[in-house]
């Protein structure tokens, strides 16, 4: 499991590499929260290109970060979501809370507009 960050103005792009489950959640959560505390982004975009597996523990982490960001008036988005992961998000209604974009470019443009 590996996490990459990219700061574009006040948009934090988080690229997660590997399975998101209860075991990897701790590290993902603390790493993202540290970056948020440091860079104080307005909005957040999760790039899910390298996530081949996620279960409901992952839903908890994504919603948790959404709450942090939206509490300060920011937006949260996801992009490059694999079909299997997308099905899980749909079952959990996540896409009603965190908008899903077909690619990173569109996601960035759309989130920055807000």
């Amino acid at each position, binding site marked *: 499991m590996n996490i990459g960050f990219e700061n574009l103005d006040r948009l934090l792009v988080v690229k997660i590499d590997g*399975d998101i*489950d*209860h*075991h990897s*959640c701790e590290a993902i*959560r603390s790493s993202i929260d540290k970056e948020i505390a440091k860079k104080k982004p307005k909005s957040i975009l999760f790039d899910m290109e390298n996530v081949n*597996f996620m*279960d*409901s*523990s992952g*839903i*908890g*982490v994504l*919603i*948790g970060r959404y709450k942090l960001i939206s509490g300060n008036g920011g937006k949260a988005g996801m992009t490059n979501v694999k*079909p*299997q992961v997308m*099905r*899980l998000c749909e*079952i*959990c209604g996540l896409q009603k809370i965190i908008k899903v974009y077909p690619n990173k470019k569109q996601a960035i443009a759309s989130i920055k507009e807000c």
Partner: protein
Amino acid sequence: MKIDNEMKLEFLSKSQNESFARSVVAAFVAQLDPTIEELAEVKTAVSEAVTNAIIHGYSHKTGNVVIIARIIGNTVEIEIRDFGEGIADIELARQPLYTSKPELERSGMGFTVMETFMDRVEIQSHQGEGTVIRMVKTMKTA
């Protein structure tokens, strides 16, 4: 109801065993030639039940988690058992969004995911004795 194949896996309730457990079940179910989607569904359901055993069943200690999987024709039966705290109110536990551990950022969607991805999910639990989740899924392929 002839059992064509059967396996039993026991492991410690450590979080690094979550990915191990779902890989084992996936490797066992592979003999049914499932689609990628079906395999992902089984893996996710197993991951939910195993995670629950670890964080809810054995919240403050380490115990054994047991998985039994049986193949009968095109169907897989999976049993996930812990000897932990047990569930006080099964009806409530099954509700979407209900979690007893919101402080851990649990989504409360574990049982809903299992029920959506598997054909049948049964919960048996006694407080102080532990929990058994039985899940069944028939592969559409083959």
